[in-house]
C-alpha cells in the first residue's frame, strides 16, 4: 500500500500545485475542527476584501459640443493649388439665438482673443440651433444648424446624455465664405464637426 501510494504520487505530476494541494488535503483531513476554523477565517478574509466601497461618482464627460474650426485657403503660387491653413480670429463674440429670433442672455464667447476653433452647445430640445458669430468686433454672420437628437446612456452613475446628428448647416456670407460638415455625429468624442472658411 505504502509503495503504491509513493509510486502514484511520483508518477502523477499533472498539477503544478500538487504540494499545495497535498498540504491542504492533509490539513483538511487531519482534523475537522481546525479546518472549519480555517474556512471561517478565509471566508471572513474574502468578505473584508470584497466589501470595498464602490466609486459612485460620475467621471465621464457629459457635454456634447459642436466644434467649429476656422480656416483660410492659401494659394500656392508655384503649384497653383490651394492649401488649407487654420485661421486665428483676433476677436470673437458668439451668442445663441432662440427660436423666436431673440438673442440669448448668456454669451458663449465674449470678445475672446486668438481663437481658431469654438465649441457650441446645440439645442437638446429642438432640431434647430442658431448662433450669431461676430468677427473682430465688426462683421457678423449667422450660423444655423439643423440637427436630430438621440440619447446615449452612459452609466448608472452618469445617467443619460443627448447627442446630435447634424443634418444641414446654413451660414450668411459677410465674413464667412463657406462652411463644410466634417463630422455629422456630435457626441462626447472630441472631433471637429464644422469647418468655416474665410479668404
Amino acid at each position, binding site marked *: 500500500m505504502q509503495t*503504491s*501510494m509513493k*509510486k*502514484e*504520487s511520483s*508518477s*502523477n505530476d*499533472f*498539477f503544478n500545485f*500538487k504540494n499545495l*494541494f*497535498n498540504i*491542504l*488535503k492533509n490539513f*483538511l*483531513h487531519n482534523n*475537522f475542527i481546525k*479546518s*472549519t476554523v480555517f*474556512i471561517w477565517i*478565509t*471566508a471572513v478574509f*474574502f*468578505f473584508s476584501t*470584497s466589501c470595498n466601497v*464602490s466609486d*459612485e*461618482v*460620475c467621471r465621464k464627460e457629459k457635454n456634447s459640443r459642436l466644434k467649429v474650426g476656422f480656416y483660410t485657403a492659401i494659394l500656392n503660387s508655384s503649384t497653383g493649388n490651394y492649401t488649407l491653413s487654420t485661421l486665428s480670429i483676433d476677436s470673437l463674440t458668439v451668442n*445663441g439665438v*432662440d427660436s423666436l429670433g431673440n438673442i*440669448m442672455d*448668456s454669451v*458663449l464667447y465674449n470678445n475672446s482673443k486668438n481663437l481658431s476653433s469654438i465649441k457650441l*452647445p446645440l*439645442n*437638446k*430640445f*429642438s432640431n434647430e*440651433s442658431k448662433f450669431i458669430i461676430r468677427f473682430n468686433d465688426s462683421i457678423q454672420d449667422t450660423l444655423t444648424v439643423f440637427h436630430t437628437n438621440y*440619447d*446615449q*446612456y452612459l452609466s*448608472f*452613475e*452618469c*445617467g*443619460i*446624455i*443627448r447627442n446630435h446628428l447634424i443634418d444641414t448647416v446654413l451660414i450668411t456670407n459677410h465674413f464667412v465664405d463657406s462652411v463644410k460638415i466634417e463630422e455629422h455625429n456630435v457626441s462626447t468624442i472630441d472631433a471637429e464637426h464644422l469647418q468655416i472658411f474665410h479668404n
Partner: protein
Amino acid sequence: MQNIYRYFIISLLITVAVNFSAAQNKTAGSDKSSEVKWWNGFLVKMDVVSPFVTGFSDTEHFGMEGSVQFNLKRKIFPIYEIGFGGADKLSSNAIRFNTNGVFQRIGVDFGLLKQSNDKELINNMLTGGVRLGWSNFSYDLTNLSLSDDYWGGSQTLNFEGRSTTKTWYEIVVGIQVQVYKNLYMGWNIRNRHFFKEDTSGNIVPWYIPGYGKSGSSNTGLNYIIGYHF
C-alpha cells in the same frame, strides 16, 4: 452567440477529458484497490452569504440561492443552482434602478485533490469548475434627467418594465468539508463573465440577478451549508 456556446461546451469537454486522463493515471497505478462507485449520492446546498449581505447592505441588493450537486465517482460533481435576486438602488444623481428575478446555473465541479482509494470516505474536497448562468428578468430605470444648461428646458426619462435575458459563465474554485455526519460546509469564489458585451449607449441594468453588479467581469463569493443524501 452560437460560437460562445460551442466554446463553452468544448472547454467543458476538455476539462472532462483532462480529468479523466488524470483519473486513468491513478487507476493504472493502483488497480488492485476497489473501484469507486459512480453514484455517491447528492448534496443539497444553501448559500448563506447572499441573505447575510442582504441584511448588511441597506437592502441595496438581495438574493437567495440553493443548489443540488451530484457526486459521481467522488471526482465529478454536476451541479444545478437556482436562486432569486434583485436590487433597489438610488444613484447619487437620483436615478433609481429596480429589479428582481429568478436565475439558474448549470455546471460541473471537479475534485482537484487526488483521491486515495482507502476504505475511509474522503468527503473534504477542493473543487474547480465552470457554470453557465442565465436570468430572464425585467427592470426599471427611472428618473433619468436631461437638461439643457444653455438653451433651457429639461426632461425626465423613465424606462419601466424592460425585459431582458442575460447569459454568463463562471469559473468557480471552492472548498467543501464534512463538518458533522451528513452536514457540509464550504465556500467558493467565482469569477463571472458575460458572453456578450452590451452595446454602448443603450440602457443597461445596473444589477443582474445571479450575476451581480453589471460589468464585463465580476467576482463573487458563496458560503454554503449542505446536507448529503
